[in-house]
């Protein structure tokens, strides 16, 4: 697609349930990021994937959070045993690889519209 696609756009779940959030990055983008935006807060870095390298999981808030990226494209963020404090908008972004053909977009992240998670 033309942009980063995220699904679902809205998810309401009960405390203790597991949820999966999906991100389909821009074709050809090798880097993929997950951020979390809580109400009235800035963006909190969660995890970063770059090509076939091991992901940087340093931003994941607890071991209930995990993410994978299959085939270097689509990514899934999984939250197990959801808690009310997990309620937030989860934003996915992708960026182009470095190199002359992408130099115009150097460093720029392209964001999806986010998945709004509400835990009751």
């Amino acid at each position: 697609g033309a942009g980063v696609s995220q699904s679902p756009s809205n998810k309401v779940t009960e405390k203790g349930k597991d949820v999966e959030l999906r991100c389909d990055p821009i074709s050809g983008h090798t880097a993929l990021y997950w951020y979390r935006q809580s109400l009235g807060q800035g963006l909190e870095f969660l995890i970063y994937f770059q090509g076939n390298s091991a992901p940087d999981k340093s931003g994941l808030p607890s071991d209930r959070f995990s993410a994978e990226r299959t085939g270097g494209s689509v990514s899934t963020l999984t939250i197990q045993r959801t808690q009310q404090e997990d309620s937030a908008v989860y934003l996915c972004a992708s960026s182009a690889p470095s190199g002359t053909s992408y130099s115009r977009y150097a460093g720029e992240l392209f964001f999806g519209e986010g998945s709004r998670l509400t835990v009751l």
Partner: protein
Amino acid sequence: AQSVAQPEDQVNVAEGNPLTVKCTYSVSGNPYLFWYVQYPNRGLQFLLKYITGDNLVKGSYGFEAEFNKSQTSFHLKKPSALVSDSALYFCAVRDMSWGDYKLSFGAGTTVTVRA
């Protein structure tokens, strides 16, 4: 380590007046600096960036920003604000000297432009 500060939670201006949204940053190496805008219930949209070169960068929708290395600032400006500029604005930084790929964001500034 890298960080961004947006000292104002809210900025209110009248339509037609100049708009300034402040941002200061901290990096150990050379910064890549960005401004993004977020409209209600939408994702973040790229406005402009500073990588190298001219300190004054121009972006989308008539916005511009000035990189000031001595003051470690990257304030966003628009000479004449529109009601449609009302949104949440984020400043972000990447420390490229160390190949740091994380984009660290400020807490955001809510801009309200009144008619």
